[in-house]
């Protein structure tokens, strides 16, 4: 039991369950099938986006271009189908390819120049976004194949959207990657301490480039999922991803200096953010409050993480004195 309490996701899970019970007590509409469906849809999309950022946080960097990659892939995916009549499958693979290339560019430049990933991804954010606007001239693509539309609307059973399958699989794969593979361990080791991980013989280039490629790939998937859900490819897909992409991992206890991320806690962070946003909508609170709330949640999470670190430090000190 005490082991469970120490887990990052445990407290979050408790908050989610108790919060949901409390909210549905005051507003039964919260557990209506429609509301649950909307909730799960937004969780599905943000889950992928949060994972895309989380893997970069794991190596102690940040990726500002997550939204720009998602947007570029979204309009490429729809544009290829509408303008060039490509099949869904080939458009999808090209979309994934674009995500991988974008991620590779981010990772390769970052690791080869040693310039902070923040500034590199800020530059690529504008490059990718500029390409997006240059190609579309800010006009959306409306002609989406019916099967894509169907995929975005279908439900497995009850209120569970079909769309949620992909994010759930991705979350599982990410958990396996971070907890059960040497690549994931190496990434965390690199995030923890670059010098010592290099001394251990881990190739920095490989780690950073792989992490950014995975991030780009996930951002690409996120972009295409949004297309399925919106049923069109607008150039502004991804514009609002930055804040939630950091919020979920940080609420999930990730340390921004790198070396510590928790996939399950990040997923719970996504769910918590979605529930709160949805609740504010149900209580008819101004949508701008959602944004303020998200900001405050990040700050609160930061304070809590800090406090726990402090407590852990103190406990460690007690032991070393014995």
């Amino acid at each position, binding site marked *: 039991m005490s082991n469970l309490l120490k887990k990052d996701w445990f407290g979050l899970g408790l908050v989610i369950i108790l919060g949901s019970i409390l909210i549905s007590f005051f507003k039964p509409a919260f557990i209506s099938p429609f509301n649950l469906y909307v909730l799960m849809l937004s969780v599905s999309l943000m889950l992928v986006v949060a994972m895309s950022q989380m893997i970069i946080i794991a190596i102690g960097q*940040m990726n500002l271009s997550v939204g720009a990659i998602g947007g570029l892939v979204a309009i490429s995916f729809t544009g290829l189908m509408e303008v060039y009549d490509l099949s869904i499958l080939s458009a999808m693979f090209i979309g994934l390819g674009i995500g991988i290339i974008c991620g590779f560019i981010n990772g390769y*430049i970052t690791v080869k*120049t*040693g*310039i*902070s990933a*923040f*500034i*590199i991804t*800020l*530059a*690529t*954010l*504008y*490059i*990718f*976004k*500029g*390409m997006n*606007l*240059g190609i579309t*001239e*800010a006009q959306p693509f409306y002609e989406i194949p019916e099967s894509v539309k169907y995929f975005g609307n279908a439900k497995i059973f009850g209120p569970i959207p079909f769309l949620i399958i992909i994010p759930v699989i991705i979350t599982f794969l990410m958990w396996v990657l971070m907890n059960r593979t040497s690549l994931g361990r190496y990434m965390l080791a690199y995030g923890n301490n670059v010098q010592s991980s290099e001394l251990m013989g881990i190739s920095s280039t490989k780690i950073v480039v792989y992490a950014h490629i995975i991030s780009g790939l996930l951002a690409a998937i996120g972009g295409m999922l949004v297309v399925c859900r919106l049923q069109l490819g607008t150039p502004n897909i991804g*514009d*609002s991803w*930055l*804040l939630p992409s*950091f919020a979920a991992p*940080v609420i999930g206890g990730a340390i*921004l*200096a790198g070396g510590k991320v928790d996939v399950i806690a990040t997923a719970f962070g996504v769910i918590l953010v979605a529930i709160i946003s949805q609740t504010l909508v149900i209580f008819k609170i*101004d949508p*701008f*409050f*959602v*944004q*303020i709330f*998200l*900001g*405050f949640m*990040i*700050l609160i999470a*930061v*304070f809590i*993480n*800090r406090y726990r670190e402090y407590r852990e430090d103190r406990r460690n000190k007690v032991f070393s004195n014995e």
Partner: protein
Amino acid sequence: MKTKIPDFVKTNQFGLLLLVIVFILLFTFTTDGFSSRFNIYALSRVVAIDIMIGLAMMVVILTGGLNLSLGALGVSAAMFGGWCMESMGIPISISIVLILLFGSFLGWINGYVTVKTGVHSFIVTLATMSIYFGFMTLLTEAEAFRKLPETFTDFGSMKLFNKYISPLLLLSIFTCFVLFYLFKFTDIGRKLIAAGANPDAAELSGISVNRMFIYCHMLSGFLAAVAGIMLTSRIGAAIPSMAGHLGFDWLLPAFLAPVIGGTLLSGGKVTVFGTMLGAVLVTLINNGLYLIDVGEFWVRFFLGLILLFAVLLDRAREYFTSKNSIVS
């Protein structure tokens, strides 16, 4: 035998100055209307604000941090000013003092939370960005203040020097000199740099690093508020969306100017005039891109590329200068 090259030739600022001159010549001869009175006046109004934004970011980069909330903060301060002047009827001079205090206060929040949590200012200002912008939109109901006092808006459309230059640019240049003096010749300025360069050493030599970092954030908020006032005066109204969603339109010039100007992202180094030249260069290129008609939508793409090239060049310069110093 060897002719000695003066030191300033090797500096980043000199290279920048050359680039600025090259671009001015290039655009003057290749485009119509670059050197027209209208265009130069328009440029001076834009560059004035870009310099101020760049300086506001520079003073936080000094601490090794960043301020994502810059745009949101500037717009919040500007909207607060609009409310003071239009709704409350407070005289302009008092309003401006209030705006600057308000901006410094928002900066203080950034600094205080950063220092107290020990979290990177990136995440703190990411959060405050959405908090400031959210509150601003909520309180103003996304409505602009369009009936500002005429003396205030006239300042932004005033033309000096044979109608070539906006007084806003003079204000920015004046601010550059004040900051230069602050960092070069005052005790507090040196303490700020020392705290940014090596926090541990600064702490050991009796400087309160936390307090210095909070000062930097307050200064950043102050300068962002100045930029907000200038933009309001230029547009003639305080508009919630004047820096884009969440103030994001300010971020690229904010980072471009100091980074091109040679400010180290790891902190501990400021280049006031480098930042100024960086802002001039960015505005020039931006303006030139519109004039040679690359298409409105591709401008962003090129600015991103330029940022990338700027940091790569800076890296190359560092590499070669360090190699030279080993040889000699």
